[in-house]
């Protein structure tokens, strides 16, 4: 019983995270990447 519920929880989480990535990669990836390419010196307070 416990193994079945664990399997279901994992599948639900897996599908949710895949949906998050698939659904938002187009709209959010550029901003995420910009933090790495345009160095976020102000983030750490030295720019």
């Amino acid at each position, binding site marked *: 019983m416990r193994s079945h519920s664990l399997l279901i929880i994992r599948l639900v989480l897996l599908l949710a995270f895949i949906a998050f*990535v698939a659904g*938002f990669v187009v709209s959010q990836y550029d901003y995420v990447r910009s933090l*790495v390419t345009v160095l976020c010196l102000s983030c*750490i*307070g*030295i720019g």
Partner: protein
Amino acid sequence: MSKLRWAVQFIVLGIANLGFIQVLKIGVPCPFFYCHACPAAAFACPIGLLQNYAILQQVPFYALGVVGLFGLALGRFWCGWACPFGLVQDLVSLVRRGRPRDILRLPRVAWVKFAVLVVAIFLAWIALDTLFCKICPAGSLFAAIPQRFVSTEFSFGTFFYVHLATLAVALVLFVLVGRFWCRFLCPMGAVLGLFNPVSILKVRVDFDKCSRCEDCLSVCPAKIEKLEDIDSCTDCTRCGKCIESCASDAIKFSASLKR
């Protein structure tokens, strides 16, 4: 296994710094603690991302999805085997070689890192600034100090000294307490720790073989106190020291979808 773990940690440190080649600055959120303000960073820091999205008043679905997939697969294995800041702590702890126990003995307090995570995001949301990043010792070591030597935009101001101070305090604590950051303060460890009970990779104890000698608990860097907790507590970094120490061969890594 410990040699393999050292090797993996150094390899991941190298991969995290592949961003010195511009095209390899892929910017995918990484499942460990490494500052994306490092001049050579290839990945984005999830904690920095969560704060930046709190400032934007948006939900970082993409970053949550990526980190969630990493966490669901391996849980805090990333902390024990991949995290560059974990590697720093392991290297610092070498100075007390021959003395495996902590110089300063602290009880296990699992909730503090969750409080750090919540406070870091809440402060970013309220102050509209990445305040946690400004005192983060990983940011000090991997970003502020390297930037001091390579960046023309560098400001040799107050926060540089704040970074030096927090790093100095952190390094002293790492000498006194093994994996202090991972055990008590790491917000990334808090995020990944949530996945330990459901991750596919686990450290399993076979209680039919276990002699209850508790050698595994005595070597545990996370200071887990009960054999039953090894499987799913939020503190286990899957470092494998318990597996190495078990004379009964009762502890193993296990990967299963159903268990």
